[in-house]
Every structure is written in structure tokens, then in C-alpha cells.
């Protein structure tokens, strides 16, 4: 397999939440949004992070691009020159230089584009901010990238409000691409789009990956999209990675009960399919008061006493397949039938 481009080691993120009590000097409570996240991201692959709302997937993405600071942990980045640096600790010029390598696409194409700038200005902003280029050079680059993202060059003078969701997402993609990044973090990049447009954007992302050898970290809640775009999948639950595996292996044979339940819950567009599904009891737990032991145990059908007391480690049980479940080997879980 190819080399790891990003090596995330023990990433933690705590948020401070103002306490509900009316005490003037009450200490803010801490909510552990990410706890001890470690994984490797290989060059040229698409790694998806899936999970339900509040599982910390969006926070993870933002921490990686330094949109918000991580509390502790390292993100070892291997540069094009094969240097290994801690991306989170970079300062000054080097930080600015390497920051270009990691870009991001956001969920909501309406709020991620400044309504006050023309499309041309939006796409060219990163270029102008980082390089001293002549006007014609900038123009050339922008036109080139816009074309690659499937935008008509004659629309570049327009403002974002003139575009539909799908086209706005293309603009956002063009903005990310113009820095020739090596890694793009896609935070629910297609979730806000209509089904027919979703497919267009997924295909575009795949094409661009092929063409520019980009690595994607694809954050999504939708397992069916994840399966269609990723090489490997990490399932998150309440700030922890509970399962990490190559896509095929994961969908064919999930090893964590949560993964199994997630897959089973996806409604299939086939009225004749088997509708018997695993329905989890109860709610997604509140990250502010996580359950003891394995965070999933209150909803898990296979729980034992051990699960309530002991928090399982993420361990590799097969080649490239890691699970955080005490009984990963014993359980025989249901996957998805492959076409």
C-alpha cells in the first residue's frame, strides 16, 4: 500500500461548555468531543468518516485543517519533499506554505461562499493571498480550474446568488483546487444537494481525484454515499473511532455492532428487499454525559457487564481492519449484500 500522508496520533478535542448553574464562578464543564483519535491517511485514497450527529466527525475535519485548534495530539504530515512535520505545530512561513496542501469543502454551499464576492474573486482569493501573480496569470489559472470543476468560464463575473446548490458546490471545489492541494477534507460535501445533483458532484470528485491524485477525507453521515466514494471507512461514535476498515471488508462484514446497526438502518430503494432491520433502542447519547465503558453499550444488543465497565481499545483484528469492541471476534454481524 502507499505511504501514509497524514498520521493522526492521539488527537483530543475538548469543548468548554458554560454550566447551567447560576453560580457566578462555576467552572465550565468539559465535553470530550474527540478522544484519542488515531489513524493514518494514505496518499491518493479516500478515507470516509461516518457517524451520526454529535459524533465529532465535523470537529475532526476542522481540527485537521486547523479551522479550530485541537486540545492535544499530533497530526504528522509527510510533505512532498518527504519531510515529516507536525502539521498542528507549524508556525509562520512554513505553516502558510503547507497549509495550501490541505483544503476543505463545506456542507452548505450557501454559507461557504461569501455573497459579497464574485465567483472569480472567490476562486482566486487563495491564489492572491499566497502568491504574487500577475492579473493575467491569475485569470488563466482561475479559468483553467473553473473548467475542471465544470463551471462555464463566462459565469465567473457573476455573484454566488446566481447559482444553484450544485453549481455553488462546484465553485467551492474550484476554490479548494486552485491551491493544488494534496488533501481535501470534504465535510458533508454532498449532503445538502438534491439526489440528481449529488451524483454529479460525487462523480466530479472522483474524476478530480484520478486527474490530480488528490487524497480525500470524506466526512458524511450517509453510508450509501460513503460506500460509493471511499477506499476505507472509519466509523465514529461519540468522539471515538469504533471501526476502521477497507470499504469492501467493512460493508461485507462489519465487526462492530454499531456499524451493523447503521448499515441496517439505511432505507434501501427496493420495496422487495428484506425489511427486517436492527432498530436501536433509545437515543444517541449526549457527548456531555457519555455512558461508562463502551459508549455504545446502552444501545447495544450484545452487551455484557464487561461493556459497561471497560472501554474497549481500537485493535486490529484482520489486515487493515480495526475494531473497538470486546467481542469483535465472537460476534457474527450482518453486512450488506454486494451486487
Amino acid at each position, binding site marked *: 500500500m502507499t505511504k501514509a500522508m497524514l498520521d493522526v496520533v492521539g488527537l483530543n478535542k475538548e469543548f468548554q461548555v458554560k454550566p447551567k448553574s447560576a453560580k457566578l464562578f462555576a467552572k465550565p464543564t468539559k465535553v470530550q468531543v474527540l478522544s484519542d483519535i488515531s489513524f493514518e491517511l494514505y496518499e491518493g485514497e479516500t478515507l470516509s468518516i461516518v457517524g451520526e450527529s454529535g459524533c465529532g466527525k465535523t470537529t475532526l475535519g476542522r481540527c485537521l485543517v486547523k479551522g479550530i485548534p485541537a486540545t492535544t495530539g499530533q497530526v504528522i504530515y509527510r510533505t512532498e519533499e518527504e519531510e515529516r512535520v507536525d502539521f498542528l505545530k507549524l508556525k509562520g512561513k512554513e505553516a502558510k506554505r503547507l497549509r495550501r496542501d490541505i483544503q*476543505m469543502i463545506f456542507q452548505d454551499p450557501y454559507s461557504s461562499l461569501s455573497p459579497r464576492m464574485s465567483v472569480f474573486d472567490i476562486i482566486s482569493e487563495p491564489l492572491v493571498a499566497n502568491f504574487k501573480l500577475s492579473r493575467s496569470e491569475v485569470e488563466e489559472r482561475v479559468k483553467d480550474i473553473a473548467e475542471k470543476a465544470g463551471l462555464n468560464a463566462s459565469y465567473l463575473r457573476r455573484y454566488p446568488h446566481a447559482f444553484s446548490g450544485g453549481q455553488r458546490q462546484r465553485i467551492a471545489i474550484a476554490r479548494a483546487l486552485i491551491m493544488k492541494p494534496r488533501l481535501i477534507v470534504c465535510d458533508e460535501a454532498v449532503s445538502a444537494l438534491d439526489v440528481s445533483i449529488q451524483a454529479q458532484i460525487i462523480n466530479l470528485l472522483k474524476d478530480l481525484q484520478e486527474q490530480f491524485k488528490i487524497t480525500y477525507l470524506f466526512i458524511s453521515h450517509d453510508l450509501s454515499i460513503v460506500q460509493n466514494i471511499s477506499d476505507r471507512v472509519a466509523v465514529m461514535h461519540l468522539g471515538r473511532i469504533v471501526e476502521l476498515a477497507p470499504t469492501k471488508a467493512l460493508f461485507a462484514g462489519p465487526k462492530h455492532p454499531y456499524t451493523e446497526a447503521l448499515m441496517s438502518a439505511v432505507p434501501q430503494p427496493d420495496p422487495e428487499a428484506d425489511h427486517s432491520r436492527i432498530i436501536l433502542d433509545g437515543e444517541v447519547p449526549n457527548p456531555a454525559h457519555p455512558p461508562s465503558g463502551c459508549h455504545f453499550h446502552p444501545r447495544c444488543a450484545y452487551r455484557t457487564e464487561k461493556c459497561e465497565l471497560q472501554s474497549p481499545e481500537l485493535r486490529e483484528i484482520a489486515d487493515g481492519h480495526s475494531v473497538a469492541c470486546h467481542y469483535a471476534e465472537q460476534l457474527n454481524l450482518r453486512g450488506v449484500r454486494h451486487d
Partner: protein
Amino acid sequence: MNTSTIFKKKVPTTAKVPRPGKQDDKSDLNYSSQWKLMYLRFKKHKLARISIVILGLLYIVALLAQFIAPYSLQSYDSKYVNAPPTLPRFVDAEGKFHLRPFVYELKSERDPETMRKIFVNNEEKRYPLQLFVKGEDYKFLGLFRTDIHLLGVEQPGRIFMLGTDGMGRDLFSRIVLGSQISLSIPLVGVGISFVIGLILGGISGYFGGWIDSLIQRIIEIIRSFPTLPLWMALSAAIPPRIPVVTMYLYIVIIFALIGWTDLARVVRGKFISLKNEDYVVAAKIAGVSDTKIIIKHLLPGFISYLVVATTLAIPGMILSETAMSFLGLGIRSPATSWGVLLQEAQQIENVALYPWKLFPLGIVILTVLTYNFLGDGMRDAADPYKK
């Protein structure tokens, strides 16, 4: 399948065009900047448009006050104390029509029953209304001395279009001259509080933490002061015998010191909400520097709201100035403002017997209303992207 080629032949028709004006400028709107869209929406607000015209007129009058007012601040005539308004007329006592409007001479008489002084028209003496008459001299726009006034009648005739006050001063002239102070103090006051609010609110919102808390506490303290005693305290600190200009300056500063808190809050709130907008994060990730982010993304994001907040703050300032002068805390005679004029209307007998003394009130109401309508229109236009 090549998505890019497909896309090119399509016109983006789903454009969420925010309330475009007419169909013919539909395609044009796609190229319109935010300000253009705001202008288009503002244009649709009828009241705001009327207000802008009225306000424009008021400010032109204020600017040319000495020229428009027939008499100066100093001029008074004890012969004409509490004279009622004399409007120019076209038809004389015999029913004859005159092309040129005129006024009769005013004669004071005693009411035989109440022994009260009343004014009657002396129908023998007609003074035709004249344009560009010579009167007291003044400095036109502060540039050169002249004695030409827009309207007037030949001496010794007098014209009191809105009557006179208890010292025989022409009310119309005083309203016009008073507008200079009443209309400019709020602007200057709001201007100063705008700057303070922008800086302190910006610091508060951008840096957060203890400095934010500090500024917020200061704001709360200032806001919790009852305004009336605060004015009284502050104006007590102003030495009583100072030139009008200095007094004016002090009053503006008092207003600015109280008024900035609202704006600081608006600025802070906007800073905080915009700081976490995706497009700001996107710019950060793209390597855009902090200063550039503030100037290019944050400021334009809420400058329109600020303009609105400022506009809506002006009427409050006008009322404050009026109230302060009304209480005798601000500008003092012979310098005048609308508040000073209303001071005279404090006594009930004045209002009952000489109702024209309430005219300045009408002007204050008109100004405050037009500013409010203008602010409304601007608020509607400020966010051209909402439905």
C-alpha cells in the same frame, strides 16, 4: 461522461435571485454585487424613498438656514410679542385678487372684554412678499457676508409665517436656524459613537475572552445609568458661560459616550456570528491573513447592518437633544435648537393661548418619523439574500 461539457450548454436557471426588480434586469442581477441588490430592494420601499426626499429637504434648509430665515437669532421686537402666524395671502379684504402674495401690517390691540393683547390686521397697509430681500447681514455658508434673504417683506413690515414667541422673535426663523443644531448634533454624535462602537465592539467580538467580558461589563454599567440624572450630572460639569460652539461640542460628546454601547453590541454580535461562517473559515484555510479576513470578509458582512443600526440610532439622538434642551440642560438662548423652542411650550397657558408654539414639535416628529422609515427601508434592503 464528461460533466464539464454538459454543464456548459446549460444556463443556470435555478438561480435564487433575491426579489429581482423586473424581468428585463433578471439576467443582469446575476452580475449584481450586494450593494446593487440592496439598492434594488431599497428602491421598492416607498416610504423610505419619500423619507429620503424629506430628509434631503430638511438638511438643505439647515445648510442654508441663514439665507432662508427672514430674521436672525438676535432680532426681536417687543411690539410683536406672541403674534399669531400671518400667512401670505392672495386675496385682500375687498376680495380683490393679487398676483403677488402679500401680508398686512399687524396692529396690536386690547381685547375689550378680556383686556388681553391681540393682533389684528391693518388692512390699509399691504406689504407684498418679496424674494431676495435685503435684511440683516450674515455669512453665507460661512464663506462671505451678504444681507440677501430668500423671503421677506419691505421694512418696516414684518412677516411671521409661524408666529412669534414671548420675546417677539420670529418662530419660523428660529425653527429654521435651530435645525442646524438639532439636525447636526445627532449626526456628529452618532458618528463618534459609531467609531467607538466599531472599535470596542470589534475588539470585544474578535478577541473574546477577558477583554470581551471587560468591555461587556462596561457597556452594562453605562446602560444601567438612568439617562436623565446622567445628563444632569454631565451638563452640570459643563461651565455655564461658554461659547455656543464649545457647548455644542460638549453635548455631542455626552451623547456619544452614552450612545456607543448599542452599536458596540451590534458589532460584537456580528463579529462573533460571522467569525464562524463557513466562508470565513474557508478563507482562513486558504491562507488569507487575519487583517485581510477582517477587511474583506467580516466588515463587508455587517457594514450594511451597521449603517442601518446607525440610521435607527439617529432619531433617538434627536429626541435626546430635544429632551435635554427642553429641560434647559443643553443649548441655551439666544442660540437655539428645537428643544430650546419647545422649552417655551412648557407652560400650559402658552400652549393654550399660543398653540403655534408647538410647531417645532411637529418638525421633530416629522424628522424622527422619516429617519425611522429610512432605517426601515435600509433594514429591509440590508440583507438582499434573505427571502
